[in-house]
């Protein structure tokens, strides 16, 4: 198939960017979306032009490195799919595809389609962990966990930290991301001692990073390649409320 690509090119964080148009001919439908960009980049490189900068690593949908807006949707329109797992058979001959970076104040553009998502790391650093020094753990079967709780914790723990939830949200909120970690750890007995401190600390960091607030659009859960449910946001809000009753109001 033949395609027209409109790709956002931006030299660095402080330079203005603009769309550039590239024609792609004879694109194989079995290619992945990123392989299609590889082909473009090889062509540009051989011509001595700078290739389009984009991130990807595992190309199996699990590392969370890849991600861009494809025709206005993070990772494209196919449900529960990362950019690397999107294949060209989802497009038609003659299509024009617009490709731009994730847009959010907390995700400054590094170059072209690459953004800085270290704000998400800082949210985890604020409290997204269980404090257990290496060597101090009891026997793993000493604490049984209700299977249903464990399964729900797992569902929340599948977050890959790609940032699609932020990119899809009109408020650029990171609530699905933050709520997922709070839910994962908060459902497990091991996570109880720090449960309320965690929610206060992580949400405070979220605000500090200039992420917006949730107004229940639900775009995030649709964009999430792992299908994380909005329930995690409700769980986070509930824990935050309980934390206030417990007198934990400051991070």
């Amino acid at each position, binding site marked *: 198939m033949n395609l027209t690509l409109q790709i956002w090119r931006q030299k660095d964080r402080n330079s203005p960017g603009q769309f550039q148009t590239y024609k792609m001919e004879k694109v194989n439908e079995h*290619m992945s979306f990123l392989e299609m960009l590889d082909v473009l980049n090889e062509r540009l490189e051989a011509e001595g032009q700078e290739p389009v900068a984009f991130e990807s690593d595992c190309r199996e949908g699990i590392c969370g490195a890849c991600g861009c807006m494809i025709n206005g949707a993070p990772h494209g329109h196919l449900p529960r799919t990362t950019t690397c797992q999107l294949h060209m058979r989802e497009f038609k001959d003659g299509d024009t595809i617009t490709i731009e970076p994730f847009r959010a104040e907390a995700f400054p553009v590094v170059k072209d389609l690459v953004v800085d998502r270290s704000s998400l790391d800082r949210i985890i650093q604020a409290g997204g962990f269980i404090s257990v020094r290496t060597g101090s753990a009891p026997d793993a079967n000493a604490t049984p966990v209700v299977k249903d709780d464990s399964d729900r914790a797992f569902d929340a723990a599948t977050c890959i930290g790609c940032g699609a939830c932020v990119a899809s949200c009109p408020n650029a909120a990171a609530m699905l991301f933050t709520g997922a970690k709070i839910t994962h750890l908060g459902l497990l007995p091991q996570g109880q001692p720090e449960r309320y401190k965690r929610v206060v600390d992580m949400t405070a960091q979220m605000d500090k990073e200039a992420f917006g607030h949730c107004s229940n659009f639900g775009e995030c859960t649709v964009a999430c390649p792992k299908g994380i449910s909005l329930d995690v946001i409700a769980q986070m809000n509930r824990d935050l409320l309980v934390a206030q009753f417990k007198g934990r109001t400051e991070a």
Partner: protein
Amino acid sequence: MSIKLEAGAPGGPIETAWDRHKFSMKIVNPANKRKYDIIVVGTGLAGAAAAATLAELGYNVLNFCFQDSPRRAHSIAAQGGINAAKNYQNDGDSIYRLFYDTVKGGDFRARERNVYRLAQVSVNIIDQATAQGVPFAREYGGLLDNRSFGGAQVSRTFYARGQTGQQLLLGAYQAHAKMVAAGKIKMFYRHEMLDVVLKDGHARGIVARDLVSGEVKSYAGDCVVLATGGYGNVFFLSTNAMGCNVTATWRAHRRGALFANPCYTQIHPTCIPVSGDYQSKLTLMSESLRNDGRVWVPKDPKDCWDDAAGKVGRHPNQIPESERDYYLERRYPAFGNLVPRDIASRAAKQVCDEGRGVSYKGRGVYLDFSDAIKRLGRKGVEERYGNLFEMYQRITGEDPYEVPMRMYPASHYTMGGLWVDYNTMSNVPGLFVLGEANFSDHGANRLGASALMQGLADGYFVAPPCIGNYLAIQGARAKDTNAPEFKAVEQDVKGRLSKLLAIKGKRSVDSFHRELGLLIWDNCGMGRTKEGLTKALGRIPALRDEFWQNVSVPGSDTGVNQSLEKAGRVADFLEFAELMCLDALEREESCGGHFREEHQDAEGEARRDDEHFSHVAAWEFKGVGQRPELHKEQLTFDYVKPSQRSYK
């Protein structure tokens, strides 16, 4: 340099060796730990676990990763599980049995005492991860579930659906994040290590490039820990992530660290076949699929299809039972579809070499679930493999509930790596090497669910006391990056980057990588011959020369330049590949993942030569294009007597 390879493992009963060794090691006084700076490169299971653990102990850790976040490291992609000798199933497992299985599985090419220690600490890993909140699969009673994996006769594999690596890595990442917030780990995101710096013969720092600004800078410490993964991307197409590379270990090798057993690579039998020339990487499908899927090819080559050659063949569902060859069940009746990875991979290659493969260029075999669907129902199969089936369908556009899956082996893991002693330290004092980057525990073949175990064992439990011992002996030293040793290495690194940018040739970086990969895959992949290896050794230097004359690396050394990043890595693969082929040529035997076609029995099974090759081959760098010097570490087996593996 005269090098004597001493593993330094204590003698006496193997069961108490590690405890006795720990007791004999020196300890840094708690109040003095903050005087030491430790450089850790890599944030996968081994790197993140080591960084977090060392920081908890009180050391200052400088941690580097080339990705935008520590959580991206490729450990995240491991699907299957992690072994541990917990014996929660009461099915006869023990530390000794895990040790025995691992030594045997590695085809008697691993160091016995290392493997025993690995089996010992495996139980602590599960405790640690569970306490961190890793959501391992559980039974209805609330206790942990296990499964049998990779042909093991006991159920000792702990798992978290098909995402065990992700969950274990996130556990380590979270422990790491806590120490970043505590100020004990200083994290350098998007920084790539490009060289190691030695001072007075000890590893004392690294030179790294900031991939955003392009700045090249030195970092000094009291020791250096490399946890930088394997070299599987030498094949270009592999299940490794795009960024996985040999640069850190290869640069350390060039500075004096010995590279051990580079020819030991693992080819995973169940990956989605190549679909075209544009292919950038291959996707693994968990080998748990072989528990219920049956592997076959058509008996008649006329029934095979190949879209590259325009050959249509026959639809698999139209081929009757009597015209299918379930070759694993036929050749290995006892283990059937569950034979170890190396055997399953080679068998697939053999039937495809016979012209009985299917899909692009005839490189694929069927993995059929129709019997399993009849037995378990579609829902039963969906419960076990739903996410894998979904992934397969997304990539291939085919529905595996209706049409058999297609699989072909691909490079997946590398057992070779930098030589380390029992303390995980290379022959360069102060240079520690952990996880897949070292060579030590898997021998010539790694068993399923053992990689996660080894990475975490090294990072959490093995390396920290050994590093403490080294530091206690050396004492804290001045950390001065203005020292001439640092400046000289910085100049080397900068010179190399400028050289790459100045070539301004006509070929893309990837085109060289792809050509190298194909050459190595054909000649140093699943089957190796003297003839093929000699041919590859003849071709690599020419390709390397062409690279340095005709590669196109656009842009500059300031700011983000992904072409420059890739070019540096491919340049190192072009040197490393030569060593890998040489090692394969010199090892005149077949063992584990290393199959020399000259060394097989009448039935096509691997034939080891314990008399001449029961050693670790550790190579010393002598210059690009110069023959490296071979050093041997003899392997002795006091507990598990070498025998020919049989899976019939």
